[in-house]
Structures are given as C-alpha cells and as structure tokens.
C-alpha cells in the first residue's frame, strides 16, 4: 500500500469557537470555492446534517443534489470528522472513504485556531487507477483544473462574488 501523507492545514480566525464551528458546518456554499462544485448548476447550499451519520451534500439552484460524504464524528463546537467521498474524477463514490477531521480550538473569546486534516488520500490513488477515460467529460479533472486556474488567477473569494 502506498501511503500519501495527509493534507494538514492550520489557521486562526477572528471568531469565537462556536461561530467558527457554525460557519464551517452551516451553509458551506457561503465559502466553498464555487469552481470546485460537484454539481453542474451553481450551488444553492452545501450542508451537513448535524448528527453522526448525517449526510454531507450539495444542492444546486436547479434543485439537483450531490452527496459529498457523511458525518463520522460530531462534537460541536470542538470538532467533527467528515467522510469525503468525492473521487479523483470529482464524483461521489460511496465506495471511497477519505476522512476530513476539523478541530476548533478556542484561543480566546474571539480567536479560534482551526486545524484540518484530510487523510487516507492513498485511497483516492487506488480509485484514480480505476478511473475510466473520462478526463474530458464535463466535471472531469480537466474542467476542474481549468476552473481552479481561473480561481487562482483572479484570486477572488466566494464572499466577494456572492456580495456583488
């Protein structure tokens, strides 16, 4: 088995622990980079059902839905573990299980350290090896890479685009 080191991120937000947890697990469409949407239609909302086993899914403005994963651990407002089941082809795959753990550590009344770990990524590698030749299909990697590049080039956040 080839291991891929987990992606680990850490940042500080000027918000209370409760607020940070709420924003992260509330409507993710408020911050989820829209170019990385798993839906063809723009995101209407992207939500987590607040309980263990709850679904993590996105709803498009056209009413279409796509599951991202589910809740493995739910400890508001300290932490949560989400199953990320979007494969290397950027599609929901119930057979894939990678984990995103997010911890919210209060460093003050209005300062929270957020630590994120996305692990078991080698399972995506396994999946990539089974991926069909669908790179050029809409929503495949080439489209995602293009939109990612656009996002990187324009450097615009979700919030900016939503409030305009």
């Amino acid at each position, binding site marked *: 088995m*080839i291991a*891929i080191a987990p992606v680990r991120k850490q940042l500080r937000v000027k918000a209370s622990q409760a607020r940070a947890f709420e924003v992260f697990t509330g409507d993710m469409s408020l911050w989820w980079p829209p170019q990385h949407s798993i839906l063809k239609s723009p995101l209407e909302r992207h939500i987590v059902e607040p309980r263990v086993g709850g679904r993590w899914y996105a709803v498009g403005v056209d009413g279409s839905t796509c599951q991202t994963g589910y809740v493995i651990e739910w400890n508001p407002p300290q932490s949560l573990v989400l199953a990320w089941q979007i494969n290397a082809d950027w599609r929901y795959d119930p057979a894939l299980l990678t984990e995103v753990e997010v911890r919210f550590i209060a460093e003050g009344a209005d300062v929270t350290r957020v630590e994120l770990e996305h692990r078991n990524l080698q399972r995506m590698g396994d999946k990539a090896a089974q991926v069909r030749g669908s790179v050029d299909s809409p929503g495949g990697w080439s489209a995602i890479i293009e939109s990612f590049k656009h996002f990187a080039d324009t450097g615009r956040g979700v919030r900016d685009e939503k409030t305009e």
Partner: protein
Amino acid sequence: MTYQRALLALGDPTRRRVFEQLRQGPRSVGKIAAGMPVSRPAVSQHLAVLKRAGLVAAKAEGTRRVYYIDPRGLAAIRIWLDQFWDDALSAFQAQAEKQESDA
C-alpha cells in the same frame, strides 16, 4: 498538469492493468508481460507512457530493470487537495470573520 496527464495515462484499460500489476510490488517488463495477453514491447510502451505521466519509475536490480509505482505521481492528488483546502479555508476564514463582525 500532472493530474490530467496521470489520469489520461490511466484512461487506457491495458495500461491501467500494467499499472495495477505494479501495485503488488516492483516488477520487470517480462514479469508484467507474462501476466497479460500483450507482448513485451507493448508493455514497454505502456510503461513509457506511465513513466512520462509520473506514475511509475524504473530502477536497475542486478541485470534487470524493474518498474515500480512512483509515489510522487499519486501525490499529485494530494497537491491538488492541498490547494483546494487552502482556497476553501481562506474563504471560510473570511466568512467566519465577516459574520462575527456583523453579529
């Protein structure tokens, strides 16, 4: 782009089988070909494509040349997710701080 190249390389079913044989460990061209209904030269060609895509690497083992999965190729997935989370978390941060100041 590494990802695109890697996924294109794995789009061919025969090449994918060559790649998957290496998941059990390093193998020579002859050993890979023995387990497949294709010729050695064909296997060599598939390996060359996989190598260019950064999915496999080769090393000398005695007088033979063995191929193995290049972990850096699969790590491309990690690089991509790493960038994704950078983007997502900075947007999350902006949103969390915005709501806090609005509250």
